[in-house]
């Protein structure tokens, strides 16, 4: 019976819940406008969002943390004061998150199993951290269950999966060379469920809530790019939206961290900025309640929302520089070329001298004799 009551509570729509909290229709419309802004949708979508939220049910969310540093959870929970974003978080039922929940040990795992049973096929699975698969996945376990087993088990009944952070989305630092634990992203283990990758190290908190809001509102995942990231936030590169872009276009670059160019706020390309090849919302959404983002603080973009950004060469070398040691190739190349060239020259010379030795003079008389 208890679970039936629980089901009834869940059946109440988001609009009803807000109304029950004493929020007026105007407040609800404002909530929709803020949600649209959060999801990076056009304000013209507000009526559609309002309609959708009138019917939206409170989804159950199971959050699994694997090989991770808790930076993603920190990003989400610490970066904003209670606000409209937290109102959105209140609209989901976070049934399992082993860092945040009060329960521990068997009670915690029971909460996960209960949530899975009661919402079979309907719950949202959020994953942060990569999944080690080498040696049977022994490198990371929770309650004696390997990460890979737990992921497969929980993913089986999920409606959709949100891979939060570059580790869950692309493997992240665990997956970086030499990848001692055989770390993998979610998408390489679970292939039969819709997955959205909210990459970044950590991801922008409003992007995490934006994707949650989208699922809550429309009961489906947002439009994705070819790396499975929500287009609304990852549709444009840092470079395209960077306020320092005019300096790149004019060819004005900072060449060290304290030269005149750096002080004047010129482009950080030569200091290794990966902004041109990085797709994320930092340049517009920014960090710490919209205060700033790395480039605004004078540091080049590391490209943390792109796959394998740890293995893309130094953070402080320009994007146009090859990732391997070209000077060494050049020196070895000259050496090899010199040896092979000398050999080729020796062959040519010996052929030349042989030809010379084989050469004999023929007089007109000789020719006449031979005919």
């Amino acid at each position, binding site marked *: 019976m208890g679970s039936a009551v629980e089901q009834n509570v869940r059946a109440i729509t988001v609009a009803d819940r807000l109304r029950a909290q004493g929020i007026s229709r105007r407040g609800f419309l404002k909530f929709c406008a*803020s949600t*649209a802004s959060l999801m990076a949708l*056009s304000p013209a979508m507000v009526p559609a969002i309002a309609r959708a939220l009138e019917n939206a049910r409170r989804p159950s969310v199971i959050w699994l943390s694997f090989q991770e540093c808790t930076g993603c959870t920190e990003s989400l929970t610490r970066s904003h004061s209670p606000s409209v974003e937290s109102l959105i978080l209140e609209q989901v039922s976070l049934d399992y998150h082993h860092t945040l929940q009060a329960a521990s040990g068997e009670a915690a795992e029971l909460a996960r199993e209960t949530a899975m049973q009661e919402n079979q096929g309907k719950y949202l699975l959020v994953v942060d951290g990569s999944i080690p698969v080498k040696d049977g996945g022994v490198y990371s376990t929770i309650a004696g269950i390997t990460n890979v087993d737990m992921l497969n088990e929980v993913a089986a009944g999920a409606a959709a999966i949100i891979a939060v952070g570059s580790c869950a989305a692309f493997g992240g630092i665990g997956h970086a060379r030499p990848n001692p634990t055989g770390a993998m992203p979610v998408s390489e283990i679970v292939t039969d469920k819709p997955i959205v990758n909210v990459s970044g190290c950590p991801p922008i908190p409003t992007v995490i809530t934006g994707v949650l809001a989208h699922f809550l509102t429309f009961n489906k995942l947002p439009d994705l790019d070819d790396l499975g990231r929500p287009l609304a936030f990852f549709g444009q590169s840092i470079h395209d939206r960077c*306020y320092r872009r005019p300096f790149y276009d004019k060819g004005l670059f900072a060449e060290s961290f304290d030269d005149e160019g750096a002080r004047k*706020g010129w482009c950080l390309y030569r200091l290794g900025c990966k902004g041109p090849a990085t797709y994320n919302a930092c340049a517009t959404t920014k960090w710490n309640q919209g205060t700033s983002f790395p480039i605004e603080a004078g540091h080049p973009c590391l490209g943390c929302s792109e796959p394998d950004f740890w293995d893309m060469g130094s953070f402080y070398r320009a994007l146009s520089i090859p990732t391997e040691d070209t000077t060494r190739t050049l020196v070895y190349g000259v050496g090899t070329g010199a040896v092979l060239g000398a050999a080729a020259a020796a062959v040519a010379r010996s052929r030349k001298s042989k030809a010379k030795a084989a050469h004999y003079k023929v007089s007109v008389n000789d020719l006449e004799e031979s005919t």
Partner: protein
Amino acid sequence: MTRDTEQVRQPGICVGRDRGNDRPVLTELYHALETLKRCGKETIVDIKSLPFGSIDEQRLAEFLGKGEVEAVLHALGESRITETAFPGIWWIEHRDEHGEITAKSIEVANIPGILKSQHDDVADACRRLGSLVQLADPDEEPGSIET
């Protein structure tokens, strides 16, 4: 383009945040206003999603100026709805309980949708007032108050 270089020369001003993106927005607003005049169709422009530098937004706000109406909405924090010096163009800023901006837009309309009393709230008010009137004068038919 010349504006950029001027900013560079002035010390103390944050450099490079002038992206000159206020100009195209003004053009868009002009066309939206013209459409509103012609056929009453409303337009909303989301400012938060534009690649504005702080200078761009400030300049746009200064250009649009302040008009006759300034409304404050108290729901989920404060919202400020201001008519600009160009009637029909409204500057709307939604803030949460902590004063943080959650949405910012320019609405081109005769009156922004959120200022109108909403049907659900009106129905709610009707119920409440009806029961109050009934308490005061039990003979009066509550439905007749409704307009």
